[in-house]
Each structure stands twice: as structure tokens, then as C-alpha cells.
């Protein structure tokens, strides 16, 4: 068993090799490139699962498997990079490469491999028009190979992050993913919107990254290490509790400072309020990228990091800075869910849903629910990957319809606008046209909404709610105020989630086709639908790994299978070296499960029911076509602005633009003026002119005050400057000779 663990560092190597070979060797062969990428991901997947099985029963919580490499000499000591496997790593290895492999396979169909190649001229037309003049579909993505290179690197980054035993290595992987997400969001770089979204994603997450960077620098300087197995020990945490950071005249305690800085990094990467703004825009990338970023990899990284570093937040006692995590998470969960209710783009709804669900995970971690948070991250990865890939399939089908209609109408010379294939108002009744996509999408939706018993999402979400409920009922409302707030907000979030997903189902799959394009949508190829089905199976089945043993009927059943509360067993001791005890289990709580089940069903059914009969496509105003918007409009005065505010995501983008972006740019311009035109350089030139003035004065004195001897000096200066002028305009040779003479003279001095 140990021997397989020895191969852990190889896991990320497969996709790295795939990346390098595509970029350097096989770029021109599209099918070969995607095959290499898929093989690389699949090998990483196989090895990951082998490592996972090897980790079972290996007691990795107490003694993580570690491999070290000397990386940086630092004075008298040496900084070691390391790879580590503990239960948290092992369980992440189950999910990440598996989902990624499915996404890679799906991408071959999504990018139309094997279809027509576009011509040079079509490419120029496409890029010149900023993506507006698209070649006739279907055509294979022109930068197909590059796509697979980027996603391979992306996967390598995520896998490195997961197996990293060292926070600096983790940070490197973290940033490599940032780079890949930049490249992939901006994949259709000729579109201004894609370029802007990519930049926004990189810079917004970089704000978080810098906080994390500071956290790591402080942590390293306080503990002398960045290796997890050296830091996350009771002894080091005691040391951090005593330590302070001196800021000028005051000292602040080190532990909360470091913990919150690390959390800041997670807020950026996992798109929590107030750094959530980049994620919805990230939809500009190809849809498989959205699945990659929003499900399997990057956004999970933030949750993973906080789960990793949870001992710094004192999860068993609950510290004030742990409460910060809980509150940010719970707030974001509801905040993003309310926005999702008012979005029209199929992917944007999912994007806000992701932000909201990540909030659930942070809220869970924030009340000490380590296992609940990790569990929800895992199940969410499956069903959100399913939903994104499903939405990609819908868009793919809709694009086919749009092109079909455009081609059909062409002969009649009618004017037509291309309907947006991502706007849900242009869809309707797609369950007839895309049955496989529909069924799998339905499964994903039910899992996200938390439809009881049969979906994985129910079990993981329920565990979070049960954990919060248990604490506040146990400790009372004053002691347990934070868990109560978490429970309340997440329950509100649950009904909103079910509702906006029901709305989406109603708009996309039920009712009547609201555009011609929707009538001509067609099912996607096998390469796309098969991954959907596999993910659908996991979106249902994966919940079984952690059903509490006191659950009626299912508890005894899973117990007899030996898997009751399996994940809990597996993860409970993860931080034992730091905390001294293991995480408690959460029982099944009937009131909690019953309430959330009712809300989920009501929200989902209500959403479908309200929206399945709507008429009016994307061209109609929201207050005419959208039943909820109509409801808002009935509230006098504030109703319509309120809806507009939801539609416009609480104007956060606008606020940031006004308060941060524009002032910084204006300040930069001001500084440059200050530098170049107003102060610094003018001073320099002024000094220069003053020097010349002094020289002139001197010259006048020479001429008028001092006698001919001095005139001679002036004359010589004139001659000299004339000589210099000549040198500059032409005869360098002369100067070189002088230079040489000088050198020779020096050499002569030296020789003497």
C-alpha cells in the first residue's frame, strides 16, 4: 500500500506532460491533442484512485504520508517543498481528476472535433469583428489544441494543490490555476467581453491572493515553516496564539491575523462577497471551462484551503475569526441566491448558484462543521459540473437552432436578429428536443435544490443545516447566535435555490418554444451526453457515503452495508495533531430534514409551475413576462427599483468601478503628470538649467570681471564643447581613439 503512495507526486505530472506535449509538439493535430489531454487526465485519475484506496486504513490522519524536496536555501536553514497525503487529500483525489476527465471528454464534442476547419479568411473575419461574424456552424474550434493544453495545465494546478504538503507549493498551484482561468475565460480573446472578463477574474482573485501571500509570509516568519504537517500541530498553534505582529506602534495577535489573511485568499478564489464579482463574468469562457472552474477545480480550492487550515480558526471552541468565516459564507449564500432569481442567462443563474453554494460550504466550516463543508464541496462538484455541462449542451443545441433558422431565412431576405442562445427566455420546451440533456439536467437540479433522500445534495446540505441546528439548540440563542444565523440564512437560501432552479427548468425545458431557434434545437452528440449521465449517477449516489446511522430506514440499511457515516469516519481525525481531538459526528435531525425537504420541493415545484406557462421572449420587458417581476412591480415605489437592483446584482460592479478602478487609473495618470510634467522631472531639468545658468553667469564674470587669463578658459571650454558636438554628430572614431589612449594610459600606470 505504501508503495502506491510513493507515486503521489506523479499525479499532477501526467497533465503537465500533456500540456507540454500539446504546446510544443502536437498543436497542429487537433484530435491527437485532445486525445493526449484525455489520456493525461485519465492516468491522473487512475493513479489518484489508486492512492485513495491505498490511503484507506493507512492511518494517514495521525501520520500523513510526506515526501520532501529541498527547494530554497534560507540563511542557515533550508526551505523544503513537500507532497502530502492525508484523508482530506485522499478524498479530493476521488473527485477532482474524475470530474475533470469527464469534462475533457465532453469538450471534444463541445468544440466539434472532426467537423469542418474554418479558412484563414473566416478566421480573420471572426477576429476582426470581435467574434460577431461567426463562420457557419458546425466548425471545429480553431484554437482547439490550445484549449486542451490550457485545461491540462489547469488540472495539473488543481492536482498539485490537492497533493501539496507545503503552503508555498499550494500557492504556486493556486496561481497557476489563476493563470489558466485567465487564459480560458479569455479563450475567445477577440471578443472584448471575454478579454474584460478574463482581466477582471485575474485581478479580483489577485486581491485575495495578495492577502493569502501576506498570510503565508507571516505564518512562515512566525513558525519557520510552511509545511502543513509542521505547522498544524498543537505546539505550533500554541506558539501562534502567543505571537504578535508589530505594526508601528501597536501589536496585533498573530493567529487571527494570519487566519483571516488566508481566508481572504479563499474569499477571492471561491468568489465570496465582496470578491465574488469576477465569477459571473467568467461565463465568457467556453462552457466546459465554466464546469471546470465552477465545479471541479478552482472555486473548490478556496474551500479546500480553509478546510486545510481550519485548526488556525480553532474550530472546536469557535473563535471570533471563525465566526467571520461563518457570517461571510451565510451572507453570501443568500445574497447570491437572491441575484440568481432575477438572471436571464442560463449560465449566469448557475454562476450565482455556485457563489451561493460555496457560501454554504464556508458557513459550514465557519461553525466548525469541517466534514459537512467538505462533504458539500464534493457533492456540489458532481452536480454543478453536471449542470454546467448540461447548460453547455443546451446552448450547443440552441446554437444549432439559431444557425438553422438563420440559414433557412436567408433565402427570404428577411431581416432577423440572432436570438441569444444563452438567454433562457429564448428557450422553452427543450425537454422534447433534448431528452437526454433534460433528464440529466433534472437530476442535477434536484440535487442542487436538495430534493430529499434520492439526491446527494440533500444529504450534504442537510448535514450543514443539522450541524448548525444542533449547536444553537444545544447552546441556546445567546451562545449559539452565530449557528442560529447560519441556520436561518441557509434555510432561506435553500428555498431560494430550489425556486430559481425551478424557474430555470420551467423556462428552459417546459412550456412552449418561445423562438424559432428553440424549435430547431437538437440533442448533443454522445461525447457530450455520456459524461452527463455519469455525473448524474454520481449526483444521486454520492450522498450515500455519509448518511448518518440514526436516519430512519436508510441508517440501518447503510450500516448493514458498512458505509453509514463513512465520510465522517474517514475524515474525523484529519486535524487531530493540531486539535487534539476528532470532529464530532452530526446525527440526522428530523425537524431540520423535514423542513428543508418541504422548502426544497415547494420551491422547485413552485418555480416550474410559475414559469412553465410564460410567454414573451428575450425582447419583452421583464415586468411583462416574468411573474415574479410582475409581483415586484405591484409594490408601490420601491418594487421596480428593487427588481432592477437584483437584475443588476446590487450594482456591486458599478460601485467598484466608481470607488476603486476609476480612482486608481486617475491617480496613476495624476502621478505620471506629477512625475513627468509637473514636479519631479521639471525639478531635474530645472537643476540642469540652473547649472547652465551658473555656467553662463560664470562666463559673464569671466568676460567682464576677470581678465584675459580667464577668457582663455572660456575659450577652451568653447573649443571643448565644439569638439563634443562634433563627436556626437559624427566622428566616434576620434573619440574611440581618445578612449583607447586613456585606457592605455591607465594600463601604463598599472604596469609601472
Amino acid at each position, binding site marked *: 500500500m505504501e508503495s502506491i503512495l510513493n507515486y503521489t507526486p506523479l499525479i499532477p505530472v501526467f497533465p503537465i506532460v500533456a500540456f507540454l506535449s500539446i504546446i510544443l509538439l502536437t498543436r497542429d493535430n487537433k484530435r491527437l491533442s485532445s486525445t493526449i489531454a484525455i489520456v493525461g487526465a485519465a492516468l491522473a485519475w487512475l493513479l489518484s484512485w489508486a492512492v485513495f484506496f491505498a490511503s484507506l486504513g493507512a492511518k494517514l490522519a495521525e501520520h500523513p504520508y510526506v515526501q520532501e524536496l529541498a*527547494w*530554497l*536555501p*534560507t*540563511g*542557515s*536553514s533550508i526551505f523544503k517543498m513537500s507532497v502530502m497525503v492525508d484523508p482530506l487529500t485522499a478524498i479530493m483525489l476521488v473527485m477532482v481528476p474524475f470530474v475533470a476527465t469527464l469534462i475533457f471528454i465532453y469538450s471534444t464534442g463541445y468544440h466539434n472535433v472532426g467537423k469542418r476547419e474554418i479558412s484563414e479568411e473566416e478566421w*480573420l473575419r471572426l*477576429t*476582426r469583428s*470581435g467574434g460577431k461574424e461567426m463562420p457557419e456552424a458546425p466548425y471545429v474550434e480553431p484554437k482547439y489544441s490550445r484549449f486542451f493544453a490550457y485545461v491540462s495545465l489547469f488540472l495539473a494546478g488543481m492536482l498539485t494543490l490537492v497533493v501539496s504538503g507545503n503552503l508555498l507549493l499550494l*500557492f*504556486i498551484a*493556486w*496561481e*497557476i490555476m489563476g*493563470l489558466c482561468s*485567465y487564459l480560458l475565460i*479569455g479563450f475567445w*480573446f*477577440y*471578443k*472584448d467581453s471575454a*478579454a474584460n472578463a*478574463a*482581466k477582471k477574474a*485575474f*485581478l479580483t482573485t*489577485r*486581491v485575495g491572493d*495578495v492577502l493569502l*501571500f*501576506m498570510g503565508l*509570509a*507571516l505564518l*512562515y*516568519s512566525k513558525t*519557520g515553516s510552511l509545511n502543513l504537517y509542521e505547522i498544524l500541530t498543537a505546539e505550533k498553534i500554541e506558539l501562534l496564539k502567543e505571537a504578535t*505582529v*508589530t*505594526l508601528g506602534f501597536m501589536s496585533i495577535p498573530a493567529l487571527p491575523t494570519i487566519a483571516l489573511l488566508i481566508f481572504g485568499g479563499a474569499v477571492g478564489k471561491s468568489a465570496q462577497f465582496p470578491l465574488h464579482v469576477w465569477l459571473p463574468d467568467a461565463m465568457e469562457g467556453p462552457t466546459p471551462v465554466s464546469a471546470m472552474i465552477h465545479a471541479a477545480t478552482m472555486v473548490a480550492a478556496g474551500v479546500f484551503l480553509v478546510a486545510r487550515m481550519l485548526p488556525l480558526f480553532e474550530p472546536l471552541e469557535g473563535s471570533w475569526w471563525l465566526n467571520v468565516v461563518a457570517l461571510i459564507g451565510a451572507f453570501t449564500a443568500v445574497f447570491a441566491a437572491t441575484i440568481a432569481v432575477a438572471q436571464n442567462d442560463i449560465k449566469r443563474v448557475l454562476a450565482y448558484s455556485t457563489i451561493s453554494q460555496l457560501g454554504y460550504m464556508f458557513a459550514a466550516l465557519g461553525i466548525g462543521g469541517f466534514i459537512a463543508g467538505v462533504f458539500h464541496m464534493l457533492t456540489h462538484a458532481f452536480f454543478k459540473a453536471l449542470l454546467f455541462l448540461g447548460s453547455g449542451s443546451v446552448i450547443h443545441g440552441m446554437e444549432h437552432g439559431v444557425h438553422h433558422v438563420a440559414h433557412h431565412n436567408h433565402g427570404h431576405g428577411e431581416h432577423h436578429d440572432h436570438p441569444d442562445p444563452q438567454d433562457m427566455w429564448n428557450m422553452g420546451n427543450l425537454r422534447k428536443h433534448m431528452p437526454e440533456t433534460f433528464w440529466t439536467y433534472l437530476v442535477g437540479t434536484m440535487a442542487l435544490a436538495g430534493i430529499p433522500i434520492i439526491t446527494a445534495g440533500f444529504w450534504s446540505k442537510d448535514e450543514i443545516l443539522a450541524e448548525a441546528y444542533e449547536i444553537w439548540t444545544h447552546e441556546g440563542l445567546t451562545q449559539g447566535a452565530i449557528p442560529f444565523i447560519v441556520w436561518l440564512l441557509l434555510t432561506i437560501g435553500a428555498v431560494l435555490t430550489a425556486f430559481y432552479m425551478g424557474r430555470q427548468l420551467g423556462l428552459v425545458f417546459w412550456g412552449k418554444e418561445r423562438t424559432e431557434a428553440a424549435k430547431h434545437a437538437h440533442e448533443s452528440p454522445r461525447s457530450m451526453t455520456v459524461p452527463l449521465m455519469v455525473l448524474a449517477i454520481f449526483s444521486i449516489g454520492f450522498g450515500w457515503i455519509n448518511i448518518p446511522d440514526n436516519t430512519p430506514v436508510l441508517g440501518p440499511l447503510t450500516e448493514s452495508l458498512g458505509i453509514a457515516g463513512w465520510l465522517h469516519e474517514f475524515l474525523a481525525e484529519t486535524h487531530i495533531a493540531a486539535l487534539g481531538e476528532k470532529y464530532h459526528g452530526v446525527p440526522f435531525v428530523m425537524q431540520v430534514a423535514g423542513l428543508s425537504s418541504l422548502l426544497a420541493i415547494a420551491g422547485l415545484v413552485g418555480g416550474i409551475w410559475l414559469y412553465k406557462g410564460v410567454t414573451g421572449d428575450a425582447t419583452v420587458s421583464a415586468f411583462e413576462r416574468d411573474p415574479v417581476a410582475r409581483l415586484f412591480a405591484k409594490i408601490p415605489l420601491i418594487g421596480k427599483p428593487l427588481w432592477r437592483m437584483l437584475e443588476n446584482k446590487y450594482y456591486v460592479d458599478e460601485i467598484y468601478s466608481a470607488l476603486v478602478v476609476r480612482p*486608481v*487609473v486617475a*491617480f*496613476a495618470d495624476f*502621478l*505620471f503628470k506629477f*512625475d*513627468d510634467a509637473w514636479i*519631479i522631472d521639471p525639478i*531635474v531639468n530645472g537643476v*540642469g538649467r540652473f547649472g547652465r545658468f551658473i555656467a553662463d553667469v560664470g562666463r559673464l564674470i569671466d568676460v567682464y570681471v576677470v581678465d584675459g587669463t580667464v577668457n582663455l578658459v572660456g575659450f577652451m571650454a568653447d573649443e571643448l564643447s565644439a569638439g563634443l558636438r562634433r563627436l*556626437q554628430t559624427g566622428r*566616434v*572614431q576620434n573619440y*574611440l581613439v581618445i*578612449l*583607447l589612449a586613456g585606457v592605455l594610459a*591607465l594600463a601604463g600606470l*598599472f604596469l609601472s
Partner: protein
Amino acid sequence: MNGLPILSIITFAPLVAALVVLLLNNERAIKTWSVVSSFVIFLLTLWLWFAVDPKALGPGEFAFLEEYSWIPAINVFYRMGVDGLSVPLITLTGLLTFLSIFYSTYVINHRVKEYFFLFLFLEVGMFGVFTSLDYFLFYVFWEIGLVPMYFLIGIWGGPRREYAAIKFFIYTLAGSVLMLLAILGLYFSTGTFDLTALPGQELFGGNFVLKSLAFWGIFLAFAIKVPMWPFHTWLPDAHVEAPTAGSVILAGILLKLGGYGFLRILMPIFPDVFNAYWPVVAVLAVISIVYGALVAMAQWDLKKLIAYSSVNHMGYAMLGIAAAAATLNSSDPAVLDSRAIAVNGAIFQFIAHGLITGALFFLVGVIYERAHTRDLKAFGGLGAVVPKYYAFMAAATFASLGLPGLAGFVSEFMVFRGAFALIPYIAAIGVLGIVLTAAMYLWKIIQMVFLGPLNEKWKDLPDMHWWEIATLTPLVILFTLFGVYPKPILDYVNAGVVALLDLMS
């Protein structure tokens, strides 16, 4: 002093090569000779890298020491020697000079003989600064470097070349003059110019005012060279007007002469004064970081943008040095390590910045040769037509903005790791630079040049030629390699830094 005078051979080999250039009359022969000879010189510096074992050198010890009395009347020696601090910079000089000369053979067709003569001559000055261990000799080489650069800018430069060249010359000279006074002061106080003997000596009979005056005089010369805010305004002009290879050397090596001076001269000779005044240096470093990034962001000229970004990047190095200076009087082992890390970071930043910014200036040259403009507003969408150029530029900009996995990050990490342990509140302001440089590069270079709809005007722009790829590939490989696995470089540098810091404790 046994065997061959290796360092003299390396230092003056470019001079010999330059003299041969004077004898040749065929342009093709001149170019071939310059490339071959600069390559051989580079190999010599590479050999030096392997021949020196910095771990074997204790505090104040040097390899390949040469010592001859030169001007006995004033106790001036011709004294050379190298250690873990100087060898990496010598090798970097060899590499960048070779690449610059190689690249120049394809783009310089005007007054070829003088150009290559001056370029090789320039290398003598740079090598000399890094090898000399006598302050007088150091000063001579320090000044020698100015002259060829003055002509490179003044003759092969852009439209405002004369202004830029004179500004460069006068500005740096002004700093040097003050340093000369300080050197004389040191001499009259101690009777020696010996850089191996000066550390640890009591200066000016312990008179702190005089020591401070000497410190600031030398500081100014180095700060101008680095350049630190507010002594930086010669840099954008010099860079913008200099020919491509001139900018590469200017950013890649000449700026490092200043940083090297801080470590080789100011810190060991004036530890107490530096320790007293460290806040000034730290504040100037942080201003350089933030200010450099912001002003770079305001640029619409690609080359000027990169020039200002150098102010930012050298600010990181100076922050590391200032952080080390802040604790020169402490002997706590944890502080000692933090100090070593900060200085390691500064030197690694010299190397990383040399490779990365060198690559960036080459890339500016590549596009300027084709488009004859550097106006960022004039481009757009070039990613569609010049994918290779885009790939190289993206690699260099991401390296420059400190993407982990590339060399720039390693130095930023070490500088901030050191600085956060020693002066956290100042370091916390400095990290702003990390966000700002990212914004600046992504917006002003990547987006303005390569992304968005393709500008019709450039649809026939040719992608990179083989010689351009050949020039840039080694740089990209090196800054990636050192980013992934910095240990080989840092083993070397760390040994030198530990020796240097031991000298003061």
C-alpha cells in the same frame, strides 16, 4: 594570485574583442566576430560559475583574488576577486551581452563597427564593477560603463536621443561625483581603498555626522543607478530612446550595479549608519514599488511602461535590502535567517529582473521593428495574427507580474517573507505593488495589444523570425527553470549572502 589571472582575463576579454572589431572592415565579419567572441566570453563566465565554490568562502574571503600595487603613492591597488554575490551577476552579464549582440546583428545596419565596438567595451565596465575589490578600481569601472552607453543612446537611439543621452550621462555623473568625494573621505579616514579591509574599520574616528555624509554621498550614486524614487527620471527617457539591445543591458545589468553597490559597499562598510537610516531607504523602496507600478499604468508607450515597471521591480529588491539593514544590530537566530532571506530575495530579484525585463525589452524591439510604433492604442487583437509573439509576450509579462512558477515570484516571495518578519507594516504597503503590476500588464500590454477585435491595419503583420525566437528562448527557459527550481542559483547566492552578513555580526 596563483596561476592565471582569471578575473582580469574575463574582464578585459571584451576589450580585446572590441579592439579586433576596430581592425575589421567587413560588416559581416564584424558581426560574426562580435557574436562569436561574446559567446566565448559568456562561456568563460559560465565556467567561472562552476569554478567558484561560494560555500568554501568564509566571511570576507574571495575566489580568484588578484592583487597588484597600482598607484602606490595613494595606496591604490589593482585588486579583484569574486564570491557568491558577484559571480551570478557576472554570468548574467555574459549571457545578456551575448544575446544583445546576437540580436543586434540582425537589426543594426548603421555604423556597425562603432556599435559593436562600444557594446563590447560596455561589457568591460560591467565586469569590472563586479570583480573589483578596490574602491578606486571600482570607481574607474563604474565610470567607464557610462561612456559607451552614452554613445549607444546618443547615436543609435530614437528621436530624442540627444536629450536622453545627456540626461543619462549628467544624472549618473552627478551621483558619481558625490561618491568620489565620499571615497576620498574614506581614504583620508582609513588610508585604504581596499573593499576587503574597509568593513569593520572605524570610520572618521567614529564621527557619526561625517560617516553619515559619506554614506549619503555613496547612497545617492547607487540610488540613482538603481534607480530609486525620486532619482529615477533619467530612466524612462534613456530606455525609450535607447536602441533595443541598449535597453536590455541598461535594465538587465546597469541598474544592478547600483543594487550590487548597496550590498558590496554600503552595507558592510557602513552597517551602523545604514541601520540608523534604514527607514528612509525602506520608505523610498516602498514608494518606488507603488509609484513605479502606478506611473507605469499611466503609460501608452510600451517601452516607457516597461521602463517604469523597472522602478517598481527594483523597489522590491531595495525593500529586501532595507529590511536587512533594519536589523543589522540584532543577533537573534530567527532574525538572522529572515535577514538572509530578504537579501537572497534582493539578489534573486536582480537576476530575475535581468532575465525577464531583458526579454520584455527584446519583445518591444520585435514589435517596433515591424509596426514602427509603440503606441499601445494603435494595436489590438494581435493574438489572432502573431500567436508566437503573443506567447512570448504573455510568458514575459506573467513572469514580470510575479506569477508563481516563474522566477519573479521567487524573489518577491523571499523579499516579502524577509520584510514581513522584519518590518511588517512597510511590507504590507509594498504588496500593493503586486496587484498594481498585474493590473498594469494585463490591461496595458496583454489586452491593448493582443486581445479584442483585430485591428485591420495589422492583419499582415509577420510573426517572429527565427533569430528573435532564438534570442528570447533562452531567457524564457531560464526564468521558468529558476521559477520552478531556484535552488541551484540560491545555493550559490545564499552562501555569498551568509558570508556577507556574517561579516557584520
